[in-house]
């Protein structure tokens, strides 16, 4: 007699390879459910708050606080925009302007020179890597390179003297604004090369060919198509360089040991304790001022990039 077994569950019997389905989980309540996906970014958020937001708040708070009493005051801010500190801002702005426009143009020319080269060619790799090294490494080694070559007893200075060109007699010195500007070029130009290269690559060759096909010569292409399309990116990159020059500290400090009137250096001197009584919080006001300037620059930069992205898709 055969034994019959009744199948307990109605419906299809799972095949031999199928795994049992997990039991349905109980759904959390509405608000918790809505917030749950954001849990994934919690570590990041916590870190940013601790490492960035809180220091930011401290700086802003301190800028409006009297050092002794903790009372709200605008004296820090008013000190920060007068006298030596005003000169500091002016110098910083001028320096940053020079050290963003000129390297901007030079960097663009260099980037243009290599972007026509084949993708994986040695030339491109070398130039890009060199740019990366100089742009990212920081101002200190570069400052010393320049001291040893263009400093008052530097080798290059000596060679030029031997040729009859005593640059120090002509008023040049590495340890003031003009010298700092020269050294800034050294890392601003590579930075420009790196940031403008993607934009250059966004210029499709078919645009150039279409222009040529329609009778345009090289300069006409640049005037009507290449230039206008690149302009937002170019300006944006120059702005990026401006921000970079504004916030630079290490190079100027290493070169001048803090004797030069730039905002970043002045902020540094507050941390070194070179400060008048009652003015301890002026450094923070300076910091706020610097941040405001750079923030405006970055907003413009972001807007320009968005425009560029629309065209260079």
């Amino acid at each position, binding site marked *: 007699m055969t034994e019959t077994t009744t199948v307990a569950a109605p419906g299809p019997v799972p095949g031999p390879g199928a795994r049992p389905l997990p039991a349905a989980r109980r759904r959390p309540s509405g608000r918790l459910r809505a917030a749950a996906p954001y849990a994934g970014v919690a570590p*990041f958020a916590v870190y940013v708050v601790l490492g960035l937001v809180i220091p930011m708040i401290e*700086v802003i708070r301190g800028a409006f606080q009297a050092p002794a009493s903790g009372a709200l005051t605008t004296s820090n801010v008013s000190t920060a925009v007068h006298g030596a500190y005003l000169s500091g801002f002016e110098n910083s702005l001028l320096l940053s302007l020079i050290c963003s426009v000129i390297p901007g143009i030079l960097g663009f020319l260099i980037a243009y020179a290599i972007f026509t080269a084949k993708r994986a060619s040695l030339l491109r790799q070398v*130039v890009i890597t*060199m740019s990366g*090294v100089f742009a990212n490494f920081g101002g200190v080694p570069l400052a010393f390179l320049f001291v040893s070559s*263009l400093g008052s007893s530097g080798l290059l200075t000596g060679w030029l003297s031997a040729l009859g060109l005593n640059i120090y007699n002509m008023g040049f010195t590495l340890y003031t604004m003009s010298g700092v500007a020269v050294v800034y070029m*050294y890392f601003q130009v590579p*930075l420009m090369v790196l940031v403008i290269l993607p934009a250059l690559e966004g210029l499709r060759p078919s645009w150039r060919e279409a222009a040529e096909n329609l009778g345009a010569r090289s300069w006409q292409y640049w005037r009507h198509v290449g230039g206008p399309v690149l302009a937002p990116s170019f300006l944006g990159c120059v702005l990026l360089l401006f921000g970079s020059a504004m916030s630079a500290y290490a190079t100027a400090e290493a070169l001048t040991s803090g004797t030069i009137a730039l905002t970043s250096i002045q902020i540094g001197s507050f941390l070194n304790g070179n400060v008048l009584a009652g003015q301890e919080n002026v450094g923070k006001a300076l910091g706020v001022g*610097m941040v405001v300037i750079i923030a405006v620059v970055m907003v413009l930069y972001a807007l320009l990039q968005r425009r560029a992205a629309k065209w*260079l898709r």
Partner: protein
Amino acid sequence: MAPLTRPRRPRRESGIWRWVILLIAGVYFILPLATAQRFAGFSSFSSVFTQPGFGAALWLSAQLAIATTLITLAIMVPTTIYVHLRLPRLRRLLEGITILPIVFPPIVLILGVLQAAPPWLKSSQWLLGLEYVILAMPFAYRAIDAGLRAIDLKTLTEAASSLGAGWATTLWRVLLPNLGTALMSATILIVALVLGEFTMASLDLFVTFPVWIVQFDQLNAQMSVGASLFALYVTWVILMAITLAGTRQARRTGRGEVSLFTVTTSNTTVGES
């Protein structure tokens, strides 16, 4: 008329201009290097290791570099992947946040950090490490973002999960191997950043490598220059090696050139696919 094989001139004369520009640029950049090298002499390379404080400073910088890299990647990789997959609307915000460290320059950041940090943290070198993570975020995000876009994250993840992989397996076996180049470039950028960071370290009064170079200059300028050059060469060699290795690997997987440095906030994809 018999067809002749005529040598054709290249159509663009800008080929000459390219070399002129590069030559001038090359001279401008190599000259200070060359004179600095001349100044420092080659003997300084060997003796720099024995200078007082060199070892300690380099070791400190190395420790900070390792710690910063690990922490930055540990935070940024999962977060970026997560945002790309689950919270795409937050991408803009994430991009914006990672730009903030550029807007708040190190000089201002250290101002706030020294004010806000508790004393026990302030006296430790690890405060620097923690803050370096903040500085490294823009670079790490750029590199990882470019890498994710090049590998079409969504499709790979969906394919993996349809084949039965959990998120940990997906991350470990599918995503990370394909992000190799991006992670490598992020690492190198972070290391270069830490080894060159002077502002916060000097004002936090810790003698990292760049700080040591500046201090040591008072005693022996040649050594300082030698140390700077040494650091420069080493970074350069490592970067070239990584780029070449990355390019070879990318060519194998059919992805063409490797772009190591991503500093812009444009929406254009940098990775070639």
